[in-house]
């Protein structure tokens, strides 16, 4: 008779995730118990403290790497350099984008979320809730739950953990997408679409897990890798499983042709939530993809590299070319985000291991994501500030002449656009350079040439926005709303870091390069 070993759990090492989860649970308690007028303040303090404490745990744990690197929670979580880096970035970006959730000055003392999301749009119940100044402070715990899922997703070391994390991450996002205060039908429609298509992609992912299990006899990344090196069964199962896993992950990344949800959801969701999704979801999905493909399927890279290369080209192409003709700012940013997914995939394809001193694929991807992340957080925060009578102004024509109404804000937005475009002296340029050179060293020079060509076309998209802001007659009735620090902090930090990373990329490049060895 086998003895059942008691499960081990490394509380201290996993404290960053647990803190976020705990904060989310306390948030639910606050919703249930605290009086209505205290809830909002309590939630805001809670999420800031929660993420802050999680970050402190992370740093403390990382400062003693000898004890704290390795497989945790019975081998289901891999705590290695990449996990630490991605957790750190996720916490920072989540904090910044959730600050925008808490902005109430722009909208006459209300947040960007519906007063009563369950009421029928246009109904008496809705009007009543708005009049009573109700608001959904549940958005904060929901985002924290999602953040928990993201953190587990990027560190998961077996496919089942990854799947559970994927769902924990996604379900709150479906809800958050449908809670916009204005244009509620559009928002609800977006949420439903996101949910249905997300369910479809999850089904693919799950099917891929099953097939991969059939091939390797294990969910564990390490065992899958061993099975690829020394297969028991034919590889047919593996290839099919690999393809389905790829589909599930590429959906979350927003790669073409699994990208249809991105523009609709980005436009429909409340803008602060869009910002949260645009960076945190993308970061988590890319992180998990890299881990699955490098750690579990690394031995089969010759099989998946061409696939991802094709997807990368199509993604960059479609994202860039469609962005050229967009007239809606959020939609433009959505297609921009699709094209960035393509650029990131270029580095994923490169799959260069860490030659000493060289920036490898993971390092370049993370640098790119950080540069992209700061620009994205700032850009979506600015979208919430450009308003007219009916709320945010999304038509690009409404942004005309913003440079004269608020030179500071338009100037910051211009910096962010330049970083997106990858113009030298911005973080985006170094990021592009890093991912391109990673792919080049991986032997994909044709892919790099294609990517460079697309990035130059893409520059036109962003420069067009700058031209509109500075060289067109100001649009009537559009103003820059007076925002509190909740919006200004992400805006200012986004611009500052975008410029800083362009001038002094060294420290971050060193950091992402030094800590990019995966464990399994």
């Amino acid at each position, binding site marked *: 008779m086998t003895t059942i070993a008691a499960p081990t759990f490394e509380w201290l090492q996993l404290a960053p995730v647990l803190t976020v989860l705990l904060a989310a649970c306390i948030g639910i308690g606050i919703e249930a118990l605290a009086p209505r007028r205290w809830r909002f303040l309590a939630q805001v303090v809670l999420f800031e403290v929660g993420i802050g404490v999680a970050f402190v745990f992370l740093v403390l744990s990382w400062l003693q790497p000898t004890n704290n690197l390795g497989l945790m929670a019975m081998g289901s979580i891999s705590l290695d350099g990449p996990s630490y880096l991605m957790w750190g970035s996720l916490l920072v970006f989540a904090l910044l984008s959730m600050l925008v959730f808490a902005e109430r000055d722009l909208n006459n003392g209300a947040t960007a979320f519906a007063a009563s999301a369950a009421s029928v749009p246009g109904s008496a119940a809705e009007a009543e809730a708005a009049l009573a100044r109700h608001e959904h402070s549940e958005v904060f715990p929901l985002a924290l739950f999602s953040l928990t899922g993201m953190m587990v997703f990027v560190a998961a070391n077996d496919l089942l953990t990854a799947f559970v994390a994927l769902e924990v991450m996604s379900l709150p996002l479906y809800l958050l997408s449908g809670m916009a205060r204005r244009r509620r039908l559009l928002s609800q429609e977006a949420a439903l679409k996101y949910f249905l*298509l997300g369910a479809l992609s999850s089904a*693919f992912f799950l099917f891929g897990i099953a097939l991969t299990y059939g091939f390797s006899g294990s969910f564990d990344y390490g065992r899958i890798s061993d099975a690829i090196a020394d297969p028991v069964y034919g590889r047919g199962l593996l290839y099919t499983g690999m393809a389905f896993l790829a589909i599930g992950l590429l959906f979350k990344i927003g790669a*073409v042709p699994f990208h249809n949800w991105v523009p*609709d959801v980005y436009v429909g969701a409340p803008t602060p939530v869009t910002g949260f999704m645009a960076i945190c979801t993308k970061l988590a999905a890319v992180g998990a993809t890299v881990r699955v493909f490098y750690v579990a399927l690394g031995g089969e890279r010759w099989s998946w590299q061409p696939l991802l290369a094709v997807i990368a080209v199509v993604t960059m192409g479609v994202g860039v070319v469609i962005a050229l*003709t967009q007239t809606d700012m959020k939609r433009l940013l959505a297609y921009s985000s699709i094209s960035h997914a393509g650029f990131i995939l270029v580095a994923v394809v490169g799959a260069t291991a860490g030659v000493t001193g060289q920036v490898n694929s993971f390092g370049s991807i993370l640098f790119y994501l950080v540069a992209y992340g700061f620009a994205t957080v700032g850009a979506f925060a600015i979208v919430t500030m450009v308003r007219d009578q009916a709320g945010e102004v999304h038509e690009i024509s409404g942004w005309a002449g913003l440079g004269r109404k608020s030179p500071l804000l338009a100037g910051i937005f211009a910096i962010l656009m330049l970083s997106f475009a990858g113009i030298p002296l911005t973080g985006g340029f170094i990021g592009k350079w890093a991912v391109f050179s990673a792919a080049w060293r991986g032997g994909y*020079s044709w892919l790099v040439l294609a990517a460079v060509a697309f990035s130059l076309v893409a520059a036109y998209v962003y420069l067009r926005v700058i031209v509109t802001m500075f060289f067109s007659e100001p649009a009537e009735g559009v103003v820059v709303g007076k925002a509190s620090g909740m919006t200004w902090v992400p805006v200012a930090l986004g611009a500052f870091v975008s410029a800083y990373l362009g001038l002094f990329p060294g420290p971050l490049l060193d950091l992402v390069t030094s800590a990019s060895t995966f464990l399994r």
Partner: protein
Amino acid sequence: MITLESLAPVAASGMFSYAWLMIAVPAAVAAILLLFGRILDRIGHWFAVAAVVFSFSIAVCLFSQQLLSPPDARAVAVPLFEWITTGSWQVSAGLLIDQLSILFALLVTGVGSLIHIYSVGYMAHDERRRRFFAYLNLFIAAMLTLVLADNYLVLFVGWEGVGLASYLLIGFWQHKPSAAAAGTKAFVMNRVGDLGLTMAIMTMLALFGSSAFTAVNAAAPHLDPFWATTIGLLLLLGACGKSAQVPLQAWLLDAMEGPTPVSALIHAATMVTAGVYLVVRSHAIFEMSSAASTAVVVVGCVTLLAGAWIGTSKDDIKKVLAGSTMSQIGYMMLAAGLGPVGYAFAIFHLLTHGFFKANMFLGAGSVMHAMDDDVNMRHYGGLWKVTRITFWTFAMGYLAIIGFPGFAGYFSKDHIIEAAFEVSTLAGVTALIGAGITAFYMTRLMVMTFLGEKRWREHVHPHESPKLMTVPLIILAFFSVIGGALMNAWIQDWLEPATGAHVQETSLVPGPIGWSTMLVVAAGIALAWWIFGMRPVPAVSPASANPFTVAGRNDLFGDAVNNAVVVQPTLALSRGLVANDDRIIDAGADGLASVFTGLSTQTRRLQTGQVRAYALTMMIGVLLVGAVMILTQLG
């Protein structure tokens, strides 16, 4: 022969450690003028002038210090900061002040100072004068970054910076839709050129692990011919975009929508010559690939004829000069493509052209000032009596550009024609014909503008421009006269270390080619005089069925070609993709409408369709993934 390949630049000391101030001061003044706004409306432009003059004085100091140093200590490296240092990536931002870049710095800041002063007069009544000067200073800073950079990445920063400044200044008069359109066009066409430059830099980084000029020059001789040709052609593409060479020439004519001092500074004297600088700077690469340098020669020859052709048939004085600029840069390109025999001559012509073309553009500005901003030469005539200083200074530029013996252009252009004959008779003949056409269209311009009968519109009372404008003209005219003789004996020796140029004997007595050039030029003048000087000029351009005239008037159909080859296919692609991918735009608009109108039934039906359509797209994606996986396995 001392070349940079064998000689590391010496470390900066003394005056050279302050070279960065040349860039920093105009940049800082530009920022101040833009940020501090209205307070500086009245005096801001003098800060801008002071900044450029300051940069010029530093350039002069550095130049004199170089003159005093022995030849092997003239190239000075000024490291600024480590840009990227991670493992094998070492990109430092720094300046390289050598014999080549100092000449550019002198030209940019010297001519720049004069044009700034001129602009104080020219823009005196413009409401947005402060902004104009801020952009001009921004341009100076960016252009100096471009020419003083010690590696291609920093050069690229300047390259984009001058593009930005040019773009801002072309569209400066935003109230004119044509100006805005011209700005956009310059911007787009330059993107194509930048594509080439970026890819060249990326390739260099991949091959050499560095983008520093010294490293690239050192590694280039061992370069595989295929890669040398690739990099060379990509660099040429970049040069074509910036220097308005065929096939990326169309933007320069439209760029004349900008204020005239801008045309003089950016679109004649400095920025548009950056392409020539790039080719000469990359000479080590071009020497490794005969295909790439032949391509440079071909581009130069085609452009020098095309620009001259356009120049012959325009009535807009600035567009004639713009065509002429294209043509003259074509000469420089041709010289740069000839290899070591031509580098020094390319730079020589670039400098003399900087003087006489800036002179003539500013002269044209002065004429326009006199004629209430009318640019049509058919409304001019007989102006020499009322605008005497402008006339005489313009005449100096005219004699210089046609290559009248003793004037600046005579020396520089003759050398190019002779060098071209040495390398290829075809290139030589092209250059010779170009000289004839140049004489033709410039004589036409002189005659139509300054000589003949008055054809002024009503209410136009021509007058000479204020001193602020005429003094710069006089100085530039002075250099149009003596610039050539001044540098002729000296420039080859001076540039030899930086470009590896071969020093050739140049005598002041013309040889057979020199005589035939003069003959062709005289024929061009005589023909133009016969057509435009001997009989009255019609006030409306006569309808013409002559295909040469029609093509010239239409910029050789450059726009039509671009439109058909590039613009339409791109737009069609984008629209096609949108139609497939983005049907939701309509649905989204419907969704919006339904919020207000309650027509939700219709929308819901649409939306169900949408999700189904999206899911279908995903299924197609699944098939794509499957197909690629299978193909991979088969392959």
